[in-house]
């Protein structure tokens, strides 16, 4: 399946885009997505950390993804 991944902050700079498509196996998890992304964009590994959000909420590494999910990369936040 193809997952559309939104990017914010420094992740947008790393991807060179505000959203990218990632090919994942059916029932692929957040961990699978991280591996794919870090393989293609090794600069992600230099971040202090980053989270994955699914449908506007923080996701755990084992959560399974579905094609229609809204998925986003959340680099370290710095609001306030």
């Amino acid at each position, binding site marked *: 399946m193809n997952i559309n991944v*939104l990017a*914010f*902050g*420094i992740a947008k*700079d790393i991807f060179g885009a505000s959203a990218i498509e990632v090919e994942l196996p059916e029932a692929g998890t957040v961990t699978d997505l991280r591996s794919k992304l870090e393989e293609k964009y090794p600069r992600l590994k*230099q*971040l*202090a950390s980053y989270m994955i*959000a699914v449908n*506007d*909420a*923080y996701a755990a590494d084992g959560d399974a993804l579905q094609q229609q999910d809204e998925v*986003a990369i*959340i*680099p*370290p*936040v*710095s*609001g*306030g």
Partner: protein
Amino acid sequence: MVDIKLTEEPLDIPACVAWVMSPECGGIDVFIGTVRNATKGRAVLRLEFEAYRQMALKEMQKIAKQAMEKWPVQKVLLHHRTGTLQVGEVPVVIAVAAAHRAAAFDACRYIIDTLKQTVPIWKKEFFEDGEVWVAAHP
């Protein structure tokens, strides 16, 4: 009562204070964040705030709700600004009203501390000689 806002417009501090004031509440604590003119001795020219808007609003609601569950507070206001801000401008205003002041202080501090950890908003600092996404790297 909760008032959450994420806006490109300048925040209106007197209006925020007026909104939380009420005859049941004797104590109001207000936190105002401003853009400092320097970070670690380097002169800051301006900031840009970017938000993952719909998730940021959800997380802000969640924090306000948690504060109202944890402390006896009547009103919570949490406004955050996005876009370009100059030195001295205000990215965030938090105002909390409670019958007694301890709850207002505790809740207000909890809200800003938690916002800085969980709300998907990102700040880019612009210097004379470059720019940096705050907190991105170790």
